[in-house]
């Protein structure tokens, strides 16, 4: 057997022995050693200046009969040095022995509680910091909300549940007027509402949007007088743009409803939400003009051109109100729907009417107050 093996065996034995000592407690070690040295309990007690009762308690591991942990360790140390034992080993055995007997769970909750206590100020601080952050974020987001919406107007998106509408970006405005441009809902009272792919109607109608839209989209806000000039040049606007206008407005107003169909109800609602008038600027700088396109879901097209301000109300074959508003000079109202249409004009002499491309003379229907009620497409 080599010396290494010898050492290993020894250490194994020591470990085993140590485990045994821990299980039995340090007392038996002391008693064995004292008896081996031929010392009586009385002699040991005298040398240690403690009572015989304490010596016996130490030897029988009756630690509860001794004054306290600090004293027990002191006695053990003194006893070990008296008997020539290694006091550190003995103390280790004692510690392990008492640890085994102690309820291990008693210590950990205390530690956990302390840790929690130490964390409390940080929890409070982070709570305050969180609240402050939330306020700051809210402040900035309410500021930038408008900007966000403006951004949305620059990038057309399809509204879920709404027919995809092809709309050019504002930058395209400067291109030739062959394609429909950014449609824009203009209400004189509460001027501009952009209906481009904005999902929530409430957002689209925030007044804050108006100015920014105008700036960012480098679009002119066309108010009545300007609209009139514009319309004269915008006559060449594509029918396609007209067709899509209904969907745009619908998407600007009620995504859910428009999903069901781009029918009359949308248009009616448009009127109620739009306030005084809903104008739509189409075309570019070369062809200014206001063409209001209403798609009520039909093949027939009725077009009314205004040369002065006039109230107009249109009902389709189902006797549902397709459009009702006041139009100004230069406006062109173009309605796709199912004929026959019942049309009421406030200032009939200042309006020209065409049905499916045919001019209709309705001078006979003009009443004494210059209004006219007529039915076209019978």
């Amino acid at each position, binding site marked *: 057997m080599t010396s290494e093996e010898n050492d290993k065996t020894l250490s194994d034995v020591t470990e085993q022995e140590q485990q045994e000592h821990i299980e039995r407690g340090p007392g038996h070690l002391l008693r064995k050693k004292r008896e081996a040295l031929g010392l009586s309990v009385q002699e040991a007690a005298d040398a240690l200046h*403690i009572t015989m009762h304490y010596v016996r308690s130490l030897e029988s591991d009756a630690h509860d009969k001794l004054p306290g942990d600090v004293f027990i360790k002191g006695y053990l140390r003194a006893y070990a040095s008296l008997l020539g034992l290694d006091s550190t080993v003995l103390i280790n055995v004692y510690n392990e022995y008492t640890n085994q007997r102690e309820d291990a769970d008693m210590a950990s909750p205390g530690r956990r509680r302390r840790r929690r206590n130490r964390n409390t*100020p940080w929890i409070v601080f982070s709570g305050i910091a969180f609240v402050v952050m939330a306020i700051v974020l809210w402040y900035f987001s309410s500021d930038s909300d408008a900007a966000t919406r403006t951004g949305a107007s620059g990038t057309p998106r399809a509204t879920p549940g709404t027919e995809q509408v092809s709309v050019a970006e504002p930058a395209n405005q400067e291109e030739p007027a062959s394609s429909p441009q950014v449609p824009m809902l203009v209400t004189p009272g509460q001027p501009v509402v952009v209906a481009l792919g904005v999902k929530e109607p409430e957002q689209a109608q925030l007044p804050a949007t108006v100015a920014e839209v105008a700036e960012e989209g480098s679009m002119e806000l066309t108010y009545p007088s300007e609209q009139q000039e514009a319309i004269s040049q915008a006559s060449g606007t594509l029918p396609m743009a007209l067709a899509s206008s209904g969907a745009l407005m619908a998407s600007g107003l009620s995504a859910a409803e428009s999903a069901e169909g781009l029918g009359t109800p949308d248009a009616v609602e448009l009127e109620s939400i739009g306030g005084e008038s809903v104008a739509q600027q189409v075309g570019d700088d070369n062809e200014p003009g206001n063409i209001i396109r209403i798609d009520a879901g039909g093949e027939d097209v009725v077009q009314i051109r205004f040369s002065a301000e006039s109230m107009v109300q249109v009902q389709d074959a189902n006797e549902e109100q397709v459009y009702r508003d006041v139009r100004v000079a230069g406006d062109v109202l173009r309605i796709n729907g199912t004929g026959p249409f019942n049309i009421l004009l406030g200032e009939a002499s200042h309006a020209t009417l065409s049905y499916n491309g045919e001019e209709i003379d309705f001078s006979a229907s003009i009443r004494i107050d210059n209004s006219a009620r007529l039915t076209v497409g019978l």
Partner: protein
Amino acid sequence: MFKKFRGMFSNDLSIDLGTANTLVYVRGQGIVLNEPSVVAIRTTNGQKTVTAVGADAKRMLGRTPSNITAIRPLKDGVIADFQVTEKMLQHFIAKVHENSFFPPSPRVLVCVPCKATQVERRAIRESVVSAGAREVHLIEEPMAAAIGAGLPVEKASGSMVVDIGGGTTEIAIISLNGIVYAESVRVGGDRFDEAIITHVRRNYGSLIGDATAERIKKEIGCAYPSSGELREIDVRGRNLAEGVPRSFTLNSDEILEALQETLSAIVQAVKSALEQSPPELASDIAESGMVLTGGGALLKDLDKLLSEETGLPVIVAEDPLTCVARGGGKAMELMDANDMDSLTIE
């Protein structure tokens, strides 16, 4: 109010402001600082600035050029230099809160010698407040030592504690969270060093410094004649007659002899405390014994000496150097848990 807010991010500290060493115990963390109570001060154009504090400053003791003075601001357990103590405390408190985002404003419990006068206590309190503490509590050193050693101070049985510090030895008999009898003698570790220096000068005609004397004490110092081996140490000192450094060897027996006078002062103080104690408590102490704490308890066989002299069991507390600071920390926890101030003094 802001101090209170800052206090939320500071730890509760227990400071053992000792003559030789200052220890800081942080609640929940244990002893975080153990440095000598030494401050090195540089004087430039009459302006004093702190150069080093603690261990760095201690290395400078006795080795400084004329413009730097390394001083120990505490003498015999009380403040000798108010301003320097304040600087030292400031340094230590900041060091403990190194990772803190806010300037620290901790709650501090400071241990004071039980025989410190009102003036001395006030000096300590104000020093700590000036160093940035938001709340200061004082506790008597032997009480903290007993709590730190794990004595059953709250029980109705006498516990005797002998705390041998650098400057003073505090002896107290404690029962029911209060001090029944306390005695403070201005004898401590420093006196041991001085005794060794005197011995060397007298017998070898050589002069050694404080640091060397402390090293001798730690390595071969003992309080009771050991039956076993004789330990020796080589030291160098300046020979007074020749004026040049000389090397010589000291052994443990002569150091024991050199320490006799100081040791007997401690023994006398312990005996007198036992004489003064009420009989019930004396019987408790006779049964369980007394506990030694403080750095002086590390002197070899001091427990044996006291045990032989008094005939009582004498126990050296575990980790005696940190007992007072740990006890202060525990006292603070006890005070918080039980909402009581009985452990502290005005």
